[in-house]
């Protein structure tokens, strides 16, 4: 009898603590919507460089990524760059009148890209319109074609890139991405008034990138846990 009661008390204790432990071991999200894993992303891109000294660039191109996991994607992008003179360049040329500031202009970039997406979430606009979003970081490297003016030589080369951004999901298969990226390009930024040769150095080309992401397959999956 005593053995039976002790066994029963033991069973009661184990069953309730096991239930509490089960809850604590559960992930913070159940039946999570999977926004990235096993999906292809095609993105038309528009960007423009900021904080340039002599030459701004408008960047137009297209990117592709495949997400191996929900937090990891790999892909590539190709960008055409259209140059725009900066206000400093204009002021120098206007001030001298007879001087043209020789600069390097980025023509084309092609990069391999890796994306890490550690944070995904949901939010409400004015407590009424829900949407999903994520934070991600990107890194990559590739080829860049740089054309020189005047005494500056053309310089094709290798260009690493890193950046971070956010993606806002308009529908399950379409999102808008906003990113800040830094393309490190080995180039001579500008010549000098006495046209002396200048050595090339890695120049930060910080760019704001706007993209519209199209995901295939269109519909979202749900996680199994």
């Amino acid at each position, binding site marked *: 009898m005593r053995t039976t009661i002790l066994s029963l008390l033991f069973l009661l204790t184990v069953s309730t603590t096991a239930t509490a432990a089960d809850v604590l071991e559960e992930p*913070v999200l159940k039946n999570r919507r999977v926004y990235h894993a096993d999906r292809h992303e095609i993105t038309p891109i528009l960007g423009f460089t900021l904080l340039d000294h002599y030459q701004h660039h408008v960047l137009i191109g297209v990117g592709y990524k495949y997400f191996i996991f929900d937090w990891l994607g790999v892909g590539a992008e190709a960008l055409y760059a259209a140059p725009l003179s900066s206000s400093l360049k204009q002021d120098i040329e206007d001030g001298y009148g007879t001087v043209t500031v020789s600069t390097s202009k980025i023509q084309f970039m092609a990069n391999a890209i890796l994306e890490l997406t550690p944070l995904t*979430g949901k*939010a409400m*606009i004015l407590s009424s319109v829900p949407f999903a979003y994520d934070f991600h970081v990107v890194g990559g490297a590739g080829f860049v074609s740089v054309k020189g003016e005047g005494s500056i030589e053309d310089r094709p080369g290798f260009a690493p890139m890193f950046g971070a951004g956010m993606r806002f999901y308009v529908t399950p298969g379409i999102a808008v991405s906003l990113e800040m990226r830094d393309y490190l390009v080995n180039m001579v930024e500008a010549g000098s008034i006495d046209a002396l040769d200048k050595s090339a150095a890695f120049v930060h080309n910080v760019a704001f990138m706007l993209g519209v992401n199209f995901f295939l397959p269109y519909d979202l999956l749900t996680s199994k846990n």
Partner: protein
Amino acid sequence: MRTSLVLLSLLWSCVAWAQEERSEVFDRIYVIQKMETVVRGHIEIAPMAGYVANDPYFHQLAVGGNLGFHITEEWGLGGTFYQYFTMRSSFFSQVQRDYAIYPSNVHNEWSAGGWLTWAPIRGKVALYPLAIMHTRFYVKAGAGVLRTSTGLHPDGEVGLGLQLLAMSFWSVVVELSDQMYIEKYNARDEFKNQFLVRAGFSFLIPVL
């Protein structure tokens, strides 16, 4: 026999109770959780550091912070003060060497003012599978004074911010701001936009 039946029914009721408790716990987990009051009625103390991103001639680091009060979940107001630490950039001397141009030696010294914030977008973000954190996206507008090396100038500021609440009493804050003022050079007055990137921590103290 009677004793065994009593014990069996006790055991059965315990198992049933455990199942009911588990069901009740999961019934309270929604896809989008009920919105919690995270900042309303709180004083916010936010030490922050910033950098003037669009000055090619000077590296300008701002150290200071915000002190404010959140009236509602959406609206907050407060004050700010930043001390600037500046250093000439390499481009300052490069443009002198290359084109015999001598940039104005004008830089920030300190700024102070008031601000109002509005957070129309609030939500959550998952650091899966570890944690869920509250987020607030807000717009900010303010006015105050900016002291530069040429004197004291009234200024206005507009910006965007992101607050990530790691715990109920502290968060990580990132702001992008445009600080506007009229700089008085020797030759002319010029309207200037300074783009600042600021980041820091904020501590929330409940008072209501």
